[in-house]
């Protein structure tokens, strides 16, 4: 049962990552070239997923869009991890200090804002672009990882092996990196997968309202927005990017779920 989630999730994710990687070398058609007379074709032999309102091949657009989505989400989650995990480790190491308070209340502050609204604000102020979308989504990943890291690290600090390390004279920083981090890595991988899927959704939402990657960069969210008025005459133009987002997010969530079960030490102990 659990393995099935993991396999389906991993397979779906792998398909999209493969499409995105493939788009660097080959797409069925060049999406920079428009073919107005050949627009709104339904899926067929020449165009496997049909063409959009500019006559662009939708499969090629999906491949290029996968690249944009994955790149934005990956870097955004990377920002969240790179800043959030050290902050969380620091807060846990200095538990109860003023520094801990400042870090965690700062996290609360960011958490208090509706993330998408702030992302809209950031992209509206600094201009709509993929880079600003990455920054906006990334900022909101920081408190997620910081809080999770701290709460996972705190009980570890009470454990005997940490106590032993402290007695040996290791600094808090070394203990955090050498003992705490490896023990919470599983958790971070699972959370990273979930945040990755949220990042895909956020990128789609931002580009849907025109604040994500700008044309001619392909983006699933903008494909949806462009297709909106065409739903009644050419439904496939809207359905295909919609399904792409759905399947990618579903895949990542199943993967995250499966990974959590698979990596959970308690369950592993049970298996042994």
């Amino acid at each position, binding site marked *: 049962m659990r393995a099935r989630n993991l396999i389906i999730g991993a397979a779906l994710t792998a398909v999209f990552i493969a499409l995105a990687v493939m788009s660097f070398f080959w797409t069925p058609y060049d999406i920079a070239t428009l073919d107005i007379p050949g627009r709104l074709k339904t899926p067929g032999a020449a165009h496997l997923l049909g063409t959009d309102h*500019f006559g662009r091949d939708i499969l090629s657009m999906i491949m290029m869009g996968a690249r944009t989505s994955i790149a934005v989400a990956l870097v955004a989650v990377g920002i969240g991890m790179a800043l959030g995990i050290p902050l969380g480790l620091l807060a846990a190491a200095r538990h109860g200090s003023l520094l801990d308070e400042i870090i965690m209340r700062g996290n609360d502050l960011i958490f208090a804002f509706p993330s998408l609204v702030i992302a809209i604000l950031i992209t509206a102020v600094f201009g709509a672009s993929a880079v600003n979308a990455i920054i906006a989504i990334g900022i909101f990943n920081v408190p997620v990882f910081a809080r999770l890291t701290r709460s996972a690290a705190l009980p570890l600090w009470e454990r005997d092996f940490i106590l032993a390390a402290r007695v040996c004279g290791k600094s808090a920083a070394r203990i955090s990196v050498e003992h705490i981090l490896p023990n919470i890595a599983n958790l971070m991988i699972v959370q990273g997968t979930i945040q990755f899927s949220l990042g895909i959704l956020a990128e789609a939402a931002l580009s849907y309202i025109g604040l994500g990657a700008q044309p001619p960069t392909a983006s699933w969210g903008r494909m949806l927005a462009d297709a*909106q*008025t065409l739903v009644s005459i050419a439904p496939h133009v809207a359905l295909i990017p919609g399904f792409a987002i759905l399947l990618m997010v579903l895949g990542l969530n199943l993967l995250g779920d499966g990974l959590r079960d698979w990596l959970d030490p308690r369950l592993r102990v049970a298996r042994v």
Partner: protein
Amino acid sequence: MHHFKRIIAATAIILCAPAAMAQDSITVAIQLEPPNLDPTSGAAQAIDSVLYANVFEGLTRFAADGAIVPALAERWAVSDDGLTYLFMLHDGVTFHDGTPMDAEDVKFSLDRARADDSTNAQKGLFAGISNVTVVDPLTVQITLDQPDGMFPFNMAWGDAVIVAPESIDNIASTPIGTGPFAFADWVQGDRIELVRNADYWGNPAALGSATFRFISDPTAAFAAVMAEDVDAFVGFPAPENLPQFQADPRFQVLIGNTEGETILAMNNQRPPFDNRLVRQAVAHAIDRQAIIDGAMFGLGTPIGTHFAPHHPDYLDMLGNSPHNPEKARALLAEAGFADGFTTTLKLPPPSYARRGGEIIASQLRAVGIQTEITNLEWAQWIEEVFTNKDFGLSIVSHTEPMDIGIYANPDYYFQYDNPSFQAVMTQLNATTDEGGRSALLKAAQRIIADDYVNGYLFELAVATVAKADIRGLWVNQPTAAVDLTAVRRAN
């Protein structure tokens, strides 16, 4: 039992009442909400869309076919030297607040519009006036600096409507005019309501009331019309949905001309667009038909210069810049940009700009010009492009009628500065005979087409979707207006 009957009767009345009212009321949707309700100071087209001919009237007015016909002035006479206009006003005209409309109000309105501190968006219309005098309560004499054959045309604009000194202070929120409809209510962000003016001096409106609603999102517009939430949508924003309405017997689709020359504006003072060869290359890189088909789903007429093709003085300059990517590349090489260059393309919200922008970006890329597309809201566009002139390329439709004169203003946002063109415009303003004007207008069109000032794309079409029983809506848009004077229901 007794109660029960009463309840049924009451319910019947309540249920029937909206149906009975619906017969002489109408809900019209337009895309944008007016920022204020003063057509004599605000530049927004939406102000005129709601108020022109409905609430406010001028001395003359645009008819549905674009002709200039009498409005508050029942007739006018021009002196032999062309310098003095005598406007004879209708008798018995009152404003909606009951005060009479007379020559004093005309003098007040014109003097206010041409005053130094006036914020009128089209001050140029009044620039030629040297003096306005009240001859008697129903006669106004207007003296011009020089003859101006366009003067009755100028007076037809929404910016030249007659307002009263008694009600001017609150005009931006409570507009009081002389038209067949009086302003009733404005729920900001939602609707503006007008009611029939029972004391109207001319033919009274057939409708008892009218509601304007504002829907800019194409998907919401489609849903509102399909669900029959609105009776008519003037300026329907999604041309791709029109075939569905055409196929549906519940609706009628009217497709008409506008005065909107849609152009790829080039910043004539910013390199490399200060080079005529580069501008010519851009003009040859553009495939107009692909833009009309791709962005407007076939609605629109290609233009080769800044002039409305349905105007008798239109000069067909399309042959000047046919789609020819090879020639465009050769011209770029000649201008020293053999490897192309990168510029900005700033796009306002309408689909002709957003979709057209993607198509043009692709066509320019084909000749080596890379564009960075930025999508802007209207307020940002006005600030960045129109006011600060911080752009390389932009796409916009110039919807003012007969607006070729903007090319004589070197400070206008595309910053075209050509003394010989300015001389033609000065000469045009001083010419009153038809033949002479026509020749000068054609000369002006030729100059800007030969200079490739902007990329001339197409004349914007306007689509109106209405319920099948609505009659009397304008098909064309000779000026931004939703004139409800003659609108009625067929049954």
